[in-house]
C-alpha cells in the first residue's frame, strides 16, 4: 500500500510538472487530491486496514498529500505570474513621447546666475550681502569716498544727475556700489565683512560700456587686515569662479577711496596664463597677455574712515580693504558673451541658453 502511495506521488509530480495552464493544474489537483482521487480513497479507508499497516500508510499518505498540495500551490503561482507577464508585455506605451502635461522650464538671467554665484562664494568666506540705494546722495557716492568737489577723479566717472529740488545736495545715480561702504560702516561698528551686488550707472554707451551695469562691491574692516589679506580673498574668490588653477595679479593703481589702490587681474583660464594656445596661436581671450583685467581694489583710505569715525572706525586701530568688479564682465568671460548689450536686450533665444 505504501508503495502504491509512492507511485501515486511520482505520477502526480510528473503531472504537476507538465501542467502549463490554470486548467491543467486544476485537472491535476482534482485527479490526485480531489474527493474521488485514489489517494483520498486510501486515506479515507485507513481504518479498514490491519492495525500494523495503519501507521505507515497514514503517515506516508498524509506526507505525500501535503507535498502535492504545496507543489500545486507553487505551480499555480508560477502559472499566474507567467500569464500576468504575458498580458503586461502586450500592454505597451511609447515611452519616447513627452510627459504630460508638458512643463516648460524657465531660465534665470545670466546676470542673476552670476550674481548669485558670487554671493554664494563670498558668503562662504564669511561675508554678508547688503543692498543700497541706486539713486543716491552725492555725499555717499563721492564726498564720503574721498572725492571732494572739484576733484578730477569725479571726472573719471561720467555721472547721471537727477533733477531734484527737494534735497540740498546733488542727487545722482550711483556710479559704483561703493556708497554702501559708507552706509554700512555708519550702520554697524567693525568688524565688518560685506558685499554689495547691484545696479550702477555711468553716462557711457558702446559695445563695452553700458549706461546701466551691475557691480559687486566688497568691504572687509577689522583689526590687522592687510593688503595681503585682500590678495588672498580675491584669489580664493577667483578660484571659485574661474577654477582652482587660477592666479591673481595686482597692479598698483589710483582710486580716491583706497590707498594703496590696485587693479586686479586673473590668469587666463583659456590659455592657462601663457598667452598662447596649444596650437601656438595667440589666445584671443586675454589677447596674448595671459591675464584678464577684472576690477579695482585697495586698502580703505583713512579719509573714508574719517567720515565714519563716530561709528567706531579709527584708522589707528582698524584697517580694511575694499574691492569692486563688474558682474557682466564675469558673465561675459564665463559664458563667452561678446557684446554687453545682449544682457539687456532680453532676447529669449539668448536667455534660454542659460539654465
Amino acid at each position: 500500500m505504501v508503495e502504491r502511495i509512492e507511485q501515486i506521488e511520482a505520477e502526480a509530480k510528473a503531472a504537476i510538472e507538465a501542467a502549463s495552464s490554470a486548467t491543467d493544474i486544476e485537472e491535476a489537483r482534482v485527479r490526485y487530491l480531489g474527493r474521488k482521487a485514489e489517494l483520498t480513497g486510501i486515506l479515507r479507508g485507513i481504518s479498514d486496514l490491519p492495525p500494523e499497516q495503519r501507521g505507515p500508510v497514514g503517515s506516508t499518505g498524509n506526507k505525500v498529500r501535503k507535498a502535492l498540495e504545496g507543489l500545486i500551490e507553487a505551480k499555480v503561482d508560477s502559472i499566474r505570474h507567467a500569464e500576468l507577464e504575458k498580458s503586461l508585455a502586450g500592454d505597451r506605451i511609447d515611452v519616447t513621447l513627452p510627459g504630460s502635461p508638458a512643463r516648460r522650464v524657465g531660465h534665470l538671467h545670466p546676470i542673476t546666475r552670476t550674481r548669485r554665484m558670487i554671493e554664494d562664494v563670498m558668503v562662504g568666506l564669511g561675508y554678508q550681502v547688503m543692498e543700497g540705494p541706486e539713486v543716491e546722495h552725492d555725499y555717499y557716492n563721492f564726498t564720503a569716498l574721498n572725492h571732494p568737489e572739484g576733484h578730477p577723479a569725479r571726472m573719471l566717472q561720467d555721472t547721471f544727475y537727477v533733477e531734484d529740488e527737494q534735497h540740498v545736495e546733488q542727487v545722482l545715480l550711483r556710479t559704483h556700489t561703493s556708497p554702501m561702504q559708507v552706509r554700512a560702516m555708519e550702520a554697524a561698528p567693525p568688524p565688518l565683512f560685506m558685499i554689495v551686488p547691484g545696479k550702477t550707472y555711468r553716462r557711457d554707451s558702446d559695445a563695452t560700456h553700458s549706461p546701466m551695469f551691475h557691480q559687486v562691491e566688497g568691504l572687509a574692516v577689522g583689526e590687522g587686515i592687510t593688503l595681503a589679506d585682500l590678495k588672498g580673498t580675491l584669489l580664493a574668490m577667483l578660484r571659485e569662479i574661474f577654477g582652482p588653477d587660477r592666479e591673481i595679479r595686482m597692479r598698483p593703481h589710483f582710486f580716491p577711496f583706497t590707498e594703496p589702490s590696485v587693479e586686479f587681474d586673473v590668469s587666463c583660464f583659456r590659455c592657462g596664463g601663457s598667452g598662447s594656445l596649444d596650437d601656438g596661436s595667440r589666445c584671443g581671450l586675454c589677447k596674448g597677455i595671459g591675464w584678464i583685467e577684472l576690477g579695482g581694489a585697495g586698502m580703505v583710505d583713512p579719509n573714508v574712515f574719517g567720515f565714519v569715525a563716530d561709528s567706531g572706525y579709527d584708522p589707528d586701530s582698524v584697517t580694511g580693504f575694499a574691492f569692486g568688479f563688474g558682474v557682466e564682465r564675469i558673465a561675459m568671460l564665463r559664458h563667452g558673451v561678446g557684446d554687453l548689450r545682449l544682457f539687456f536686450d532680453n532676447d529669449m533665444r539668448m536667455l534660454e541658453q542659460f539654465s
Partner: protein
Amino acid sequence: MRVPYGWMADYCDPGLLPRDLAERMAMTGTEVERVVTLGPPSAEGFVIGKVLDVVKHPDADRLNVCQVDTGDAGSADGGRTIVCGAPNVAAGQTVVVALPGAVMPGGMKIKQAKLRGVESNGMICSDRELELGEDHNGILVLEDGPAAGTPAAGVLPLAEPVLELEVTPNRTDCFGIYGVAREAHAISGAPLAPAPWDGGPIGPGVGSESGDLERLGDPAGAVKTADRARVLVRDEELCPRFTARGYAEVKVGPSPRWLRSRLIAAGMRPISNVVDITNYVMWLTGQPMHAYDLDLVPEGELVIRRAENGEKVAALDGNDYELTDRMVAVADRNGLAGIGGMMGGSVSEVSDSTTTVLMEAANWNGPNILRTSRDLGLRSEASSRFEKQLHPDLTLRAQAVAARLMVEVCGATPMTGIVDIAAPVPAAEPIWLRAGRVERILGLAIDTDRQARALEMLGFGVQRDGKDLLVSVPPDRHYDVTREIDLVEEVGRISDLDRNLPATLPSGPGRPGGLSRQQVLQRRAEDSLRESGFDEMVGWSFTDPNEKDRLRLDPEDPRAGAVRLANPLSEEQSLMRTTLLGSVLGAAQRNLSRGADRVALFESGRVYLPAAAFGPGPLGGDFPGNTRPPFNEPQHLCGLAVGSVDPSTWRGEASGADFFALKGVLEHLAGSLGTAVSVERIPGAPTQPFLHPGKSGVVRVDERPIGWIGEIHPLVAAEYDLDCAVAFEIALADLLQASPVGEEAYRDFTPFPPVDRDLAVLVAEEMPASSVLAAVRDSGGELLASVSVFDVYSGEGVGEGEKSLALRLRFRAPDRTLSDEEIEPIWSGIIAALEEIGGKLRG
C-alpha cells in the same frame, strides 16, 4: 601721455626693451596703454647719403637720376644710382637713403627696381615717408655733418618707440617727460640725470654751456620784464601764481628738426619755434606755458580776473567762447586775451612778424579749471594738466627751461627778471613714516633701508630717526602725497609687490556670513517663476516720458515719473521707471517681432518712486546709513505671458495663457513662500488704467494690497503690438513679510476622519466667489476645516443674471469623529449666512 623713449632716455635710460619697461610700469602704477613705433619698424637699412650728382631721367620728366654716396661698396664707384621723383633734390645735399632691404613705415620693402629703364638701388626719403613730419614738398635734407654711410638712426629718431601712458589723475608728475624718467629710474635703478631746470639736458640742440640762467637773464643794460609787462592778478584763489618773462629780438620761424620731431613723436603739431617751445616745455616739465606777442598787448598790461557773464573771447583754436563769472580770464586793456588755464586768445597770438614775446607760466585752481572745461566743452593739453592741480612752484621750472630754449632756438634776448605774482603756499610739512607701518598695511615686511631707498629714488627727501623715516615731499607730488598712508603706497608699489606679497585671509574676528532671510526668500520667489516656465529678463532702469501715455497712466499718477535725469543720454532714457510693466511689455514686443510664437517673461527689479512715504528698502526694512536715500526703491516682481505658458503636446493643444493661468502662477509663487494671495476687486476703487477693467484685480496678502493682476487693456496691448497678454506686478517686500518660511510652528494633526458635504448655491452673476466663501467661512465656526469652489455653472436651469457655485465643505474636530447631529446646527447657520448675502440653495 605719449613718451618718446629717446626723449626720456635723455634723463634716464632704464636699459629695458620698451615692452619690458611698459610691463614694469604697469606693475608699479602707471598703465601703459600701448607701445607704438614711429616711422619704419626698424632703423636697419637707413643710412646717411651725400648726393653727388643729379641728372634728368631720359624718359620721364618728373624723375631724376641721382648718384648718391652711401659710404658702402654699392656706392664706391661714383655713387649709388637712385631714381628720385622729388623736385628739391640737388647735388651736395645730405639725405637719408633707404637701401634695398629696408622696410618703410607701413611695411613696404625697398627693392632694386628699374624705373622707366633705369636701375634704382634704393630710395631717398622724405620727412613724411619716415613719419618724421608732415612736410611733403620733397625729400628730407639734413644739415651737413654726418658722414655718408652713417646709420640714420644716430641722426634722426627712426623707429622711435613711444610709450602711451595712461596716467592716473593723482600723478601730475608723470604728465612731464622728466617725471616719467624719474619713475623709470625708481623702477629700474638706472641713473637719473639732473632735471632740465636744474642744469640737466634740455634737448639735443641745446648746449649745456648755455646753462647759466642768471647770466642769460641779466645782460648789461637789458630791458626789464617788469618795465614792458604789467601784470595784475585780481583773483589769487583762481590764479595762485602768475609768472612771465619777456624776450626781445625773437626770430620766429620753424623749429629745428630735433624739436619738431620730438613734438611729432609726442603727438603734437609743430607750429613755430616760439609756440613749439611752449609745448616742448610743457611736455618736458608738466607745466603748460603760453606765449604772447608782447607788442600786441597794449601797454603790456594783463589783468587776471573773473570773466563777466557773457564776456566773449576769440581763442587760438579759432572759436569764440562765451564766459561766465565762474571762469577766470586774462584781460588786456581792450578785452579778453585768453581763458585762464584753458587757451590763449588770438588777439596777441605769436606770428611770423612777432619780435617781442611774453612767456607766461601760471598756476590755476584745479577744480575751477575742471568746471570751466566742462562748462565750455573745451579740453586742451593745458587744461587737462591744470585741472588736476599743479604746484605753483612748477612755473619757475618752466620759465628756466623756456629761457634756454628761447635763446638757443629763437636767438632771443631775454629781458631781465621774471614777473612773479604768487599767493603764499603753505609749506609741505615733512611726513613721518613710522616703523612697522608698511607691514601693518601691506602684510609684508620691507626693511627700513629699502623703504628709504625707494622713496629717495622717487624724489622724496628722507631723514632717518632710528627705524622711523621723516619724509619731505617734492612740489610735483605735493597734492598727491600728504599722509603716511601715501608713503606706504609709494614704498609698496616700488617693492615688486606682485611677486613678494603673500596671499592670506583675514585672521581676526568676524561675523558669520550669509544671506538675509529676505534675500533667501527673494531667490525662492524668483525660482518659483522660473519653475512656472518664465524666463527672467533684466530691463533698463531708464524709461522714456511717453511710457506713461502708452500705459494710459494719469499725469497725476505718481507712477507718471518720479526720478528725472538732468543729463540723460537721450530723451528715451530720461526717466527712472516706476513700474516694471513697460520693460516687460517692451521685451515681449521685441521677442514676438523677432519670431517668437509665445512669451513668458518675468523681471525681479527695482522701481523708483517718490520718497514722500519713506519706506522700506527693496526687500523691507530701511537701507543702512545715517541719511535716508533720496527716493524710494522697492523691489518688484512682474510676470507677463502671451500665448501658452506650457507647450502643446500630443495629448492636446495648449491653451493660451489667460487670467486664471497667470493667477495660478501667482498662487504658486505665494505658495512657494508658504503664504497665499487673494485677488479682489475693490468696489468703487479704480482699476489699473493699463488693465482690462473686467479681467483684473488687486492682489492682496493678509488683506493688504501688494500689486495687481489682469489682462492687459487692448489699447495698451496694441501699443506694444500684442494681441492678448496677461500680467501681474507685486511689491516683493510685502509678500516676503507675509511669508512664514522658517518660522512655522508645528500643530498636531487630528487622527479623526473629516466629514465632507457639498452644496450648490445660486447667487447673482456679479457676486464674487470670494464673498460666498467668506460667508461660509465666517459662519462655519471652528469645526469647518475648509471650503472650496469645485464648479461654477450658468445657463440652462439657472436664472438669467445668476450663477451656480458648487462648494465642498469639510468639517473636522481635533478630538472626535463628528456626528451628523453635531454638524446640523452649523450647516443651518451656513445656509442662513448664504441666504443673507442673497444666495439660494439649489436642489
